[in-house]
């Protein structure tokens, strides 16, 4: 009984301690799912350079916007498009700083290795088993923009909550094709370019939230610095424009 009580107490204190430290030390950075690997590398380099700890949290941009609206702790936020970023601005938690565009991206088709459904262009997605991003996330909105301009309508087998889960469904071979960012292409999928899709780019805004911890500015500066831009570029992101 005593042992049980002690164990409970110790473990709960550990949990309590964790929840405190999450909000007290380290920068809390919320970033769009498509930024996962690039931001992990950037955070690593930033930590080595400045000694400041960075905690990254990735999700679909609209999930992140909803988290901000619900009061989630955040020092820096980076999303995959400006439309979703409007929601962050409306939240009233972003009044002191303006956002900066730090990268761009555009879409491509991916298929499982071997391209089992012989997809050649975007109109081939009509009538095949396809995964798309839900329309409220930036990749979904961008997909919609492209299909609307080409007057085609794709009925996906599944609407996925973020671009990475689209890629997973393709990698597993559960769908014949998916539409993701060019930066999401790996050697586990085949990429088929969408004609003229470079013209329809999404721009990634980043901003420092109100009452953010001091190193936030340094972190954003690092992303905009040649070093940060080089890392983003290596992961396939385009220059801000």
């Amino acid at each position, binding site marked *: 009984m005593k042992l049980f009580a002690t164990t409970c107490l110790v473990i709960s204190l550990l949990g309590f301690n964790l929840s405190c430290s999450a909000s007290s030390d380290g920068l809390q950075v919320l970033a769009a799912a498509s930024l996962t690997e690039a931001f992990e590398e950037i955070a690593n380099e930033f930590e080595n350079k400045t000694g400041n700890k960075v905690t990254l949290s990735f999700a679909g941009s*609209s999930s992140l916007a909803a988290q901000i609206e619900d009061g989630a702790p955040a020092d820096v936020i980076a999303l995959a498009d400006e439309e979703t970023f409007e929601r962050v601005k409306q939240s009233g938690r972003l009044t002191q700083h303006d956002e900066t565009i730090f990268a761009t991206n555009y879409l491509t088709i991916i298929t499982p290795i071997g391209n089992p459904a012989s997809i050649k262009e975007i109109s081939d997605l009509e009538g095949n088993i396809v995964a798309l991003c839900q329309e*409220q996330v930036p990749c979904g909105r961008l997909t919609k923009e492209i299909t609307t301009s080409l007057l085609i309508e794709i009925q996906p*087998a599944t*609407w996925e909550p973020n671009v990475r889960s689209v890629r997973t*469904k393709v990698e*597993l*071979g559960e769908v014949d094709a998916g539409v993701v960012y060019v930066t999401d292409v790996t050697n586990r999928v085949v990429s088929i370019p969408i004609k003229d899709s470079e013209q329809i780019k999404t721009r990634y805004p980043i901003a420092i939230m109100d009452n953010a911890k001091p190193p936030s500015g340094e972190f954003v500066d690092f992303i905009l610095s040649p070093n940060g831009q080089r890392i983003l570029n290596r992961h396939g992101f385009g220059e801000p424009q």
Partner: protein
Amino acid sequence: MMRSIHRPTPFGLLVVAALGFALLAIPFLGLAQRTPWSSFAQIATEETVLRSISLSMIIATSSACICVILGIPLGLVLAKAKFKGLKIVRAIVLLPMVLPPVAGGTALLFALGRKGFIGEKLNSWFGITLPFTTAGAIIAATFVALPFFVLSIESSATELDSKLEEASLNLGATPTRTFFMITLPMLRSSILAGVALSWARALGEFGATITFAGDNPGQTRTLPLQLFVALETNPERAMVIGMLMVVISLFVLVTLRGNWLGRR
């Protein structure tokens, strides 16, 4: 029936009990307080919501039916049979009750998905693909709901008096006839309880469904998935759907308690 004598409860216990109750009850208060009651009926009857409601009903009800068909024999075997490895079988049957549904969905994907070891055969031999279809959503829901049904059957079957069954067999009835005339009627209340439990569990299924069956409006976008999408796009709709699910689940529990598990 023996009446329990009234014993005073220590005050401290009451305080802790109240804390526990608060932890469970407060989230619903929060939901109820934010729910836009004035437009509740209007949102609840929007076409997207109605479509999810009917899809949820179809999936939960089909799932409960499959639970009855598969779960009665399985529950009886677990209760009556004695063989090596019974413990392992029982553990596997009950596993989905404690397993995170998203893990269950992943497992389903690797078994029954297009590239899964069974799913691949289903696809190449019969042209059947389960992911992203209502059938897939029913399988995902059944995967998590079946253990609740089996447990309900097993616990009452272990306590069944087997004298009636023996008498029936001695009088010359076949085992099949005995099963239908004697065993099933004796299990009636636990079957009904199991149906309600597994139906409610299937209705609330989210993790295994979105992992295995994806999010396909009209096919697999059930109420919980609709809630998930609404949370990011239309919070008011999310609150209304959340409240709907609370009401339905509460209704199931209350009916269960009142009619089948015995009044207290």
